[in-house]
């Protein structure tokens, strides 16, 4: 071991994480120092700058691909993709939080700090190629989301969400850790590349199967895949709306990144049937559950379960088509879901009073622009052409068909049809039904407007010109598979 100190270029390979941590710490230190009233805006602004700086750092970092810190992190196209995705989500969520925090009268210093620190964990999850580091990054991202879920301190339902998420989440991470331990027992290493080598030898040790299964349970919880989804509706209902926008996209994207790395790069055995079952269950349970919901946040929670199912279909497919399809899906899902929750957080009002379907009645007349924006997101969630959701589903199902997964594809398409019903129901309520009571229409603040604009732009961009993103995804997938 000649080298005893990490070299300069290795720090570049964790540069986005360093930037995010530094900004998080600055916020933490400034929080008690700045004046109470200006706190929210100033700290939020710093957080925003931090996440944008992290995007810049990622772009810079992508010029130096390779391993760092003794084979702990790996900068490649794949990690760059997820880094940008996660930090962009963080930036948009921070933008959409300004107004929400003011309306809810929540002291937000720690809030922005936790989002940045959570993003550190999620970024690391996508670039880590060693299971111990993946676990710690996973914990970092999880713990910050547990706390963020409980940020509506005056609402009992929020504390309930936080506690439920924490208890079940700890249980799930324990599963993941146990899987890591079993994998270590089976292959003698926690480094994914070494594991991949060991697993190529036949026969594959039985312990490796168990290890993969346990890790899948842990990650399945994080992405809200059935049958590990039961926490989702309650947590999404209780957590603050912008936080839901964050935690339904960024940690999920990161967890999918880990799944992709663990399953494909390490050439995991027995992954197919595991994912097949989870995908079919998630799609069905999510869509059926969403049919009967009256609360929009709960509805979107079930929809989130269903979308995790669609994504898993891509995992079941062959690697060379499945990986880019899954990457494209995470990106487009992030765009539309963050946007949808930004609208929800705006409409919720003080104390999140207006979150049921009835409260959305007459929105088309009250604030036409907002209703149109939400319609775009919902159409994208259905998978209507011209939106990101369409191509996402299209690539996933075509990848599945190429892999001869006809059964799974049929289940998926049927489920998409079921899903269309409840998304359309919201649109119908918005435009066709009169408001029963007068819900106050608050003007959209510039920051929230910017957040919505970015989300709409991203959704439409992915729907109209998917080529570049998909091409990038395919290239990095090929890189991942060597």
């Amino acid at each position, binding site marked *: 071991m000649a080298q005893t100190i990490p070299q300069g270029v290795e720090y570049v390979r964790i540069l986005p994480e360093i930037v995010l941590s530094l900004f998080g710490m600055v916020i933490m230190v400034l929080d008690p120092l700045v004046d109470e009233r200006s706190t929210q805006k100033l700290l939020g602004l710093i957080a925003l700058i931090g996440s944008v700086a992290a995007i810049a750092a990622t772009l810079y970092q992508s010029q130096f691909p390779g391993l760092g810190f003794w084979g702990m992190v790996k900068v490649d196209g794949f990690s760059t993709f997820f880094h940008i995705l996660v930090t962009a989500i963080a930036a948009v969520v921070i933008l959409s939080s300004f107004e929400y925090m003011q309306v809810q009268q929540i*002291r937000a210093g720690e809030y922005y700090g936790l989002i940045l620190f959570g993003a550190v964990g999620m970024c690391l999850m996508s670039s880590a190629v060693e299971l111990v580091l993946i676990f710690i990054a996973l914990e970092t991202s999880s713990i910050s989301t547990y706390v963020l879920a409980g940020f509506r301190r005056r609402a009992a339902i929020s504390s309930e969400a936080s506690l439920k998420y924490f208890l079940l989440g700890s249980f799930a991470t324990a599963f993941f850790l146990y899987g890591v331990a079993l994998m270590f027992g*089976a292959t003698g290493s926690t480094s994914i590349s070494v594991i991949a080598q060991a697993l190529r030898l036949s026969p594959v040790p*039985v312990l490796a199967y168990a290890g993969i299964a346990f890790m899948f349970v842990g990650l399945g919880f994080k992405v809200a895949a059935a049958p590990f989804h039961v926490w989702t509706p309650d947590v999404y209902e209780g957590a603050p709306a912008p936080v839901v926008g964050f935690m339904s996209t960024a940690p999920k994207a990161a967890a999918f990144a880990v799944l992709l790395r663990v399953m494909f790069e390490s050439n995991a055995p027995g992954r197919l049937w595991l994912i097949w079952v989870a995908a079919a269950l998630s799609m069905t349970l999510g869509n059926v559950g969403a049919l009967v919901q009256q609360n929009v946040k709960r509805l979107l929670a079930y929809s989130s379960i269903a979308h995790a199912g669609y994504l898993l279909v891509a995992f079941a497919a062959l690697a060379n088509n499945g990986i880019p399809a899954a990457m494209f899906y995470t990106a487009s899902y992030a765009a539309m879901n963050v946007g949808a929750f930004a609208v929800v957080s705006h409409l919720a009002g003080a104390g999140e009073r207006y979150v049921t379907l009835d409260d959305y009645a007459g929105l088309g007349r009250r604030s036409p622009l907002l209703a149109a924006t939400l319609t775009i997101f919902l159409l994208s969630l259905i998978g209507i052409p011209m939106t990101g959701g369409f191509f996402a589903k299209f690539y996933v199902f075509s990848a599945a068909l190429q892999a001869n997964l006809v059964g799974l594809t049929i289940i998926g398409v049927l489920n998409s049809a079921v899903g269309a019903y409840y998304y359309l129901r919201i649109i119908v309520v918005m435009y066709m039904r009169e408001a029963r009571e007068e819900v106050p229409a608050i003007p959209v603040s510039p920051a929230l407007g910017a957040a919505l604009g970015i989300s709409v732009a991203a959704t439409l961009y992915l729907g109209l010109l998917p080529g570049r993103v998909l091409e990038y995804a395919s290239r990095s997938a090929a890189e991942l598979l060597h």
Partner: protein
Amino acid sequence: MTHLIIFLFFGALCLAGAVNLLVQRHPINSALSLVVVMGSLAVEYLLLGAEFVAAVQVIVYAGAVMVLFVFVIMLLNAGEEVRTKGSRVAMLFGIPGMLVGSALVGWVLIERTGSQTVAAGALPGAPRTIGWLLFHNFLLPFEVTSILVLIAIMGAVVLASHPDTDSGKKKS
């Protein structure tokens, strides 16, 4: 031979502690059973030649974490648990799940194809080796752990502070 006897004894003690943890109705008894589990695990580590890990196990888990558990239970003056019937879902899925799990583990142990065995003391366990690993190969996870702890502290501060009062500054 002595090794094997000691190993089996503490393995059994560890299991008994774990079962007792579940069976006991009073939280204090459960917490103390967990201390027994931690202590027995430490002895098992010792038998594997990992003296440092064993000592850390005792100091950190038995000596600090579990003391805090006991402390909190005392502070809350938690009483005996009330027995419930248990959820039917847990019965339906839990028991078969557990049986399948233990069958799997048993099968793995009997088959043992492909899994490797390592002589006691062959894996890094000395303080010097662990230190080297921690500050070289595992430097990054080690440092990220500090972020993790920082988040946990922040979270505790946020969730413990009263929502309607100024959380950061002292009023005087």
